[in-house]
C-alpha cells in the first residue's frame, strides 16, 4: 500500500505528473491517492525528492 505523508510532502506535484494511472489528486495543501485505481507500481515513491511517498506494509489482521 502506497502512502503519502502529508506532513513530509511539499505538494510539488512530481509524483502527480509521473503517476501512470493519473490517480494522485493534489491541491495546494492536500494530496490523496485514489486507491481504487492505484496499481502500487511505486513510481511515486521513486520520483519523490523527499521521503514523503512510501510503500507501507498492509495492516495486519
Amino acid at each position, binding site marked *: 500500500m502506497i502512502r503519502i505523508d502529508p506532513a513530509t510532502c511539499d505538494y510539488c*506535484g512530481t509524483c502527480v505528473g509521473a503517476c501512470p494511472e493519473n490517480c494522485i489528486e493534489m491541491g495546494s495543501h492536500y494530496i490523496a491517492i485514489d486507491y481504487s485505481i492505484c496499481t502500487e507500481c511505486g513510481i511515486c515513491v521513486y520520483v519523490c525528492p523527499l521521503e514523503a511517498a512510501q510503500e507501507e506494509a498492509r495492516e495486519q489482521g
Partner: protein
Amino acid sequence: MTEQQWDVIIGGAGPGGSIAAEYCAAAGLRTLLLEKDRDIGVPVRCGEGVPQEGLAEFCEPDPNWIASTIDQVRIYSPDENYFRLAMPGAGYILHRRSFDYYLATRAVKAGARVETGVAVSGVLQEAGRVTGVELEQGGRQSKLSCRLLIAADGVESRIARWAGIHTALPLKDLDSCQQVTLQGPDFNPGRVDFYFGNRIAPGGYAWVFPKGENSANVGLGISGKASVRRKAQAYLQDFLEAHFPEASILSTTVGGIPLDGSLKCPYGNGIMVVGDAAHQPNPVTGAGIINAMIAGKLAAATAAKALEQGDTSANVLAAYGKAWHKRVGWEHALYYKVRLLMENLNDETYNSVTGKLSGVPEPQRNLRKVLLTVFRNQPGFVLDLVMGLFSGRSKEA
C-alpha cells in the same frame, strides 16, 4: 465567476499560462486564466535562471524582479577542480515570485481575466472535443464552457490527461530536485556555478545561482532512476555540508523537471498543452521558463487563427505543434541525445576534461576550446549545458 462563453480558458498561471493569456487577450479573444494557488508566483520551485536573449523576446529586464545579472560560469568536476567561462550578458537570476506576478499583470492589462484559488478539476468533452472545464474553488464545484482550452499546469499536469493526451512523465526522463535559498555566505553575484559528478548529483547536476551578494539558490537534480536508490534531499544535504556548512537556509523547495524533450503531440481536439505540462524544458539543463513562454506565445497565435476559422480540431491545432518543433522542439531532440550520453559519463571523465581545461590559459579558454577538449575525451556535455542555459551568448574570455 460569472457564467459566460469564454473563447479560451487557460489552466495554470506560471510563465507559460500567463504569456498564453496575454497573447490570446491581445488577439481579441475572451480569455480566462485560472490558477489553483491563492497567490501567483508562490511557491517558487525554480533556480530562477534565464538567458538574456530569451527574456528579451518578451520584456525589458526590470530591477523589481532581477536579482542578479550573470556574466560568468564556473563548471566544477567531482574532484572540485573547475574551469571558468566569461559570458558577458549571459543571463539573469530572477525573483520569480515577482516575475510570475508581473507576467500575470501583463495578461490582465492585455484584457484577460485572472482568477486565483480556482483549480481545473476536470475536462468537459462532447464528441471527442474539449468543450469546457470542471472547477473546484474552496470546496465548491462548478463548470465553465470554452471554445478552446490551454493546459499550462506545470509538472503536476493532469488537465491534458483528462482530455486524453498521454503526458505521464517517464521515470527515466525526469529530474527529481531539491533546492534551498541560502543567506549568509559571500557569493559572486555575477557568477553561476555548476557541479557535476555521480556522487554529487547522479544523472543531473548541482547549481549555485546567486541572488545578490549574500544569497543564492543552491540546489540539485538527480535522474528519476537514481532517485529510486537515494533521494535528492539526501544528496543536497551532503552538498550543503561540504560547501556551505554555516549558511542559513531561508527556504527549501522540491520539484520535478520533465527531461524527455517535449510531448510529440501537445494538442488535441479543442486543447493545447504548454510549458512543463508539455515537457518543454531543455532536456540537458532543465531550463523551462523561457520555453514555457515561447510555447504560450505560439499556442496563442494558433488559438487566434483556429477561433477565427471556427475550427479547433486537432488538425488545425497541429499548427502549434509544428511551430514549437520548428522553433525549439527539434533542438530538444538533440539535447535529449546529449543527456543520454551524459548519463554514461563517469567521474574520471568529468575530472579529466576539467583538468585539461584548467591547463588552458584563461584568455584562450572559450567555448570552442571547451568543445574540443570535451569531444577529445567524450562526446560533449559542457557546451550543450552552457549553450542551453545561456544560448549562444558566449564571447571569448
